[in-house]
């Protein structure tokens, strides 16, 4: 009986987790835009602008390429779903992840990979040049990011001796924030998530200049509802990455409901602040740098991977095991 | 050898060796053939003599057969072929006459060296004879190696054959008759076949030069 109750509460909490992510994602996007505007000495759109964009897109008529097949319409749905799946393993403000379990840190990257697969496929759907270009580059970036992301997380896994993200976050509380392997791992993840989020210097999220765009190139054929879904899932992905990074920098471990409503709210605010700060940081980075040529990207990502390896080595050295 | 005295034996051996060498050295097929006939006669005489001394009919019989069959029939056959093909010179190849003599000398030494372990054996002159026999066999092989004309190669075979008979003589005082006969018969048939072949060779190449025949390679 209470078994069932357990499951039900778990289910509800999970849905809540997802709902929170869904709500917060556009907000973060808006915030980042705003902060970029701040660096550009503009007033910029309101923070709520992304919500408005999405709702407008939802109302618009949808154009579909004559060459496209059913896969074209399937992609946005799967993309959103898969991104949410990735969200399920990310510990939220209360350090709790619905799908936390054995080795779920691999699940995070893999779910994002699923999204990438479908996106790149539908980039080819339109039979145009730009879609193909986008897919080609996205695949290229993808295969370079994967090792960095995974190794970065693995180092943390070694530090905390567990392979579940929730466990890692909890474990990191007891690790000093200036523990060198941890710092290096954070650097790695920071660099990688720039690439994952498709931001300068990897890719320019705002551009529609055909020859430079990567992510936008694949979305070129999309419009209306599908476009809304895609950009929404993109914002979610961004939120997830930043949240994860934030949790690693300032971990907030499991907060049981015993601390009471206030404590819970406090934790939420704390998480919000963390995310906001990181968001502002990325906005700053984006404003300070320029986009790199495609064939410069490998160096950047190789650096991140190398950092991860360095973190690993340093970890063992510090523990005196090499 | 009970009957023949040491010196006689050695003399004959010398003759055999010398004739063998001169076959290798001779420049005309005709001469070589003659030398070979001489040698064969010597061998058969040796066998005859031994037969007479030991008065073993078997051996005498073999000796006579040898005298007739080899010293008689074969030279005639070969001469006929020679006439048909009008070959005169032994075509030298690889080795000129002089150098071939040197090689022959070397082979003789090897033959003696090879037979050294047999010194212990009872019969006197045994080793000496065997060495000469093996030397003759080597000469025959050498002759076949370094001469172009088919007939000379046949001579080589015959020289080897002489060598073997000599060996047989020393080793066994006459092999079992059956074997002797068989081998002799084989030689005769062999020569006949060779003659047939060389006729065909003449038809095809209108010369007895073996060196033309190198189309089958690899």
């Amino acid at each position, binding site marked *: 009986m209470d078994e069932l109750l357990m499951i039900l509460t778990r289910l509800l909490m999970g849905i809540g987790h997802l709902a929170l992510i869904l709500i917060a994602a556009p907000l973060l996007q808006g915030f980042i835009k705003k902060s970029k505007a701040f660096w550009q000495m503009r007033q910029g759109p309101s923070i709520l602008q992304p919500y408005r964009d999405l709702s407008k897109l939802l109302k618009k008529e949808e154009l579909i390429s004559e060459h496209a097949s059913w896969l074209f319409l399937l992609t946005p749905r799967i993309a959103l779903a898969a991104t949410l799946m990735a969200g399920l393993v990310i510990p939220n403000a209360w350090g709790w992840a619905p799908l936390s379990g054995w080795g779920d840190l691999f699940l995070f990257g893999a779910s994002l990979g699923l999204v990438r697969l479908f996106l790149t496929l539908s980039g080819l759907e339109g039979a145009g040049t730009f879609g193909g270009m986008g897919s080609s580059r996205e695949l290229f970036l993808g295969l370079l990011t994967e090792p960095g992301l995974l190794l970065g997380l693995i180092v943390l896994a070694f530090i905390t001796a567990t392979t579940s993200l929730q466990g890692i976050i909890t474990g990191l509380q007891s690790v000093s924030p200036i523990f060198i392997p941890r710092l290096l791992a954070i650097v790695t993840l920071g660099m990688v998530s720039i690439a994952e989020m498709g931001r300068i210097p990897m890719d320019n999220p705002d551009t529609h200049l055909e020859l430079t765009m990567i992510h936008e190139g694949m979305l070129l054929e999309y419009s209306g509802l599908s476009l809304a879904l895609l950009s929404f899932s993109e914002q979610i992905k961004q939120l997830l990455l930043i949240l994860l990074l934030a949790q690693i920098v300032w971990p907030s471990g499991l907060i049981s409901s015993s601390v009471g409503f206030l404590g819970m709210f406090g934790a939420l605010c704390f998480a919000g602040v963390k995310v906001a700060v990181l968001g502002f940081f990325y906005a700053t980075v984006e404003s300070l740098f320029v986009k790199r040529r495609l064939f410069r990207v490998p160096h950047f990502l190789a650096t991140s991977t190398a950092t991860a390896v360095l973190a690993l080595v340093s970890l063992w050295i510090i523990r005196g095991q090499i | 050898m009970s009957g023949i005295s040491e010196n006689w034996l050695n003399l004959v051996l010398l003759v055999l060796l010398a004739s063998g060498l001169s076959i290798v050295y001779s420049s005309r097929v005709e001469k070589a053939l003659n030398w070979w006939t001489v040698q064969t006669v010597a061998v058969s005489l040796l066998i005859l003599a031994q037969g007479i001394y030991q008065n073993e009919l078997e051996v005498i019989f073999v000796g006579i057969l040898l005298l007739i069959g080899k010293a008689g029939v074969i030279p005639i056959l070969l001469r006929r072929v020679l006439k048909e093909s009008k070959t005169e010179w032994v075509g030298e190849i690889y080795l000129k006459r002089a150098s071939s003599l040197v090689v022959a000398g070397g082979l003789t030494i090897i033959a003696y060296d*090879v*037979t050294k*372990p*047999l010194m*212990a*054996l009872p019969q006197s002159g045994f080793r000496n004879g065997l060495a000469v*026999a*093996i030397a003759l*066999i080597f000469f*025959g*092989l050498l002759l*076949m190696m370094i001469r172009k004309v*088919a007939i000379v*190669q046949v001579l*080589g*075979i015959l020289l*080897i*054959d002489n*060598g*073997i008979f000599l*060996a*047989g003589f020393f*080793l*066994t*005082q*006459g*092999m*079992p008759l*059956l*074997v002797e006969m*068989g*081998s002799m*018969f*084989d030689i005769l*048939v*062999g020569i006949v*076949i*060779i003659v*047939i*072949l060389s006729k*065909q*060779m003449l*038809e*095809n*190449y209108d010369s007895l030069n*073996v060196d033309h*025949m*190198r*189309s*089958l390679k*690899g």
Partner: protein
Amino acid sequence: MFIGVAVIAAVGMLVSAKDTYLKLLNSVALVLLTLSGGWTIRQTFTQGSYQYGQGILYWDALSALLLSVIVIIAVYVILFSLAYMEKEVHEKKLPRTRLKWYYFWIWIFIATMLLVVSTPNLGVMWVGIEGTTLATTLLVGFYRNKKAVEAAWKYLILCTVGISFALLGTMLLFAAAAPHLGQSLIALDWRMLPKVANQLDLNLVRLGVLFTLVGYGAKVGFVPMHAWLPDAHSQAPSPVSALLSAVLLNCALYAILRWYSLTRLTALGPDFMGKILMSFGFLSLALMVGFILMQKDVKRLLAYSSVEHMGILAIGFGLGTKEAVWGASLHLLLHGLTKANLFVIIGSLVQKTGTRQMPRMRGIFKVWPYTGIIMVLGLLGITGTPPFGTFRSELSILAGLYKMDHPLLGFLALLCLTLIFAGFLYHFLQMLFGKPRESYQAGESVSTLVLAAPILVVLVLGLFIPQSLNQALNQVVKVILGGV
């Protein structure tokens, strides 16, 4: 008795060259040969040994093995050549009158080989082997064209020289044995010799063995005395090539084996001769890789592979361990069957295409599917691929090689075999597939498959070895390793 059959048949052949007559006479002779031969073989294997005429003729397991090879293959080949030679005459390659000479010589050839395996006397054996040379020379030169004559000449000269060495060796043995067995035939009787083997004079026997080995070795075709072999085999009419490759070589090897089993008992010790045999074997095996890889002429290809297999046999027998000799004896039989089959099928192919050059044969499978199938079977058989019996025999020879602590040599042998396999496969693939030439007239009857009989036997023996055969082989092993 069957020797008589053979001789009589040979003479009979000379009477007339009419197709029907020859067919009749041959088939009668074959039937008699099979009956008498089969009976002898059976007697021998059941009683362990069998003699005829107060032991003038005498067979033990080893000679019976050879006897069976001779009989089987002789029947197979002569039946084939009845059809083959007819076709030759038909295509004006030969005048009909020479046909009788062909059969005359072929039967003489068979007779001499039968003599070799039937006599208990090393001297007579020598006579027989020299006889085979003489009998086959004119068969090799049967077409009387330039190449044929050349081949015949080389064959005759080289083999005669070799054989005379063997005679010298035999004499040396006689000299060694005479003091103990008396100045008579007995002194060369391989039934008697083992009894006095350890008293024989060492040096004489040693010299004798060496000369004989080289002499008969030339006949077996060990490298470097093999030079005559490819020429003769490629120039002779295909049935004759089959006989030469599949039977004659084995007969010469048989002579060597007699000496071998004798020498093992003398003071020279068991592996004095074995070592020399093995080194000859390895030389043959290794050098053949080159010849087979780069070959153009299909019959020469087969000839070289015969040399290779003689090498394998030499290794097997030379090792002198039980299983190696077992494998070698099996291999002797199987190689005979396979090689005869290959020569026959390739012979008919050469007749059909009118060339021996492999680059000129293409797309056999399309034109003559049945020939193609048999060729594939033969290819697999000759390269010792499962499920063929040759795999079994080669494997057990190699196993023996390993047992004697020559793992490296074993590995090299394996490597050579593989390279040879690669060569064969390459050539046969080239021949079997691709675009056939217009000149071929396609179509053949299913009856072609009858030719596959021997290789099918090899196939069956690969899947399982009947007890009877196994016992027979064990007897052979006993003969070779344990004297009489």
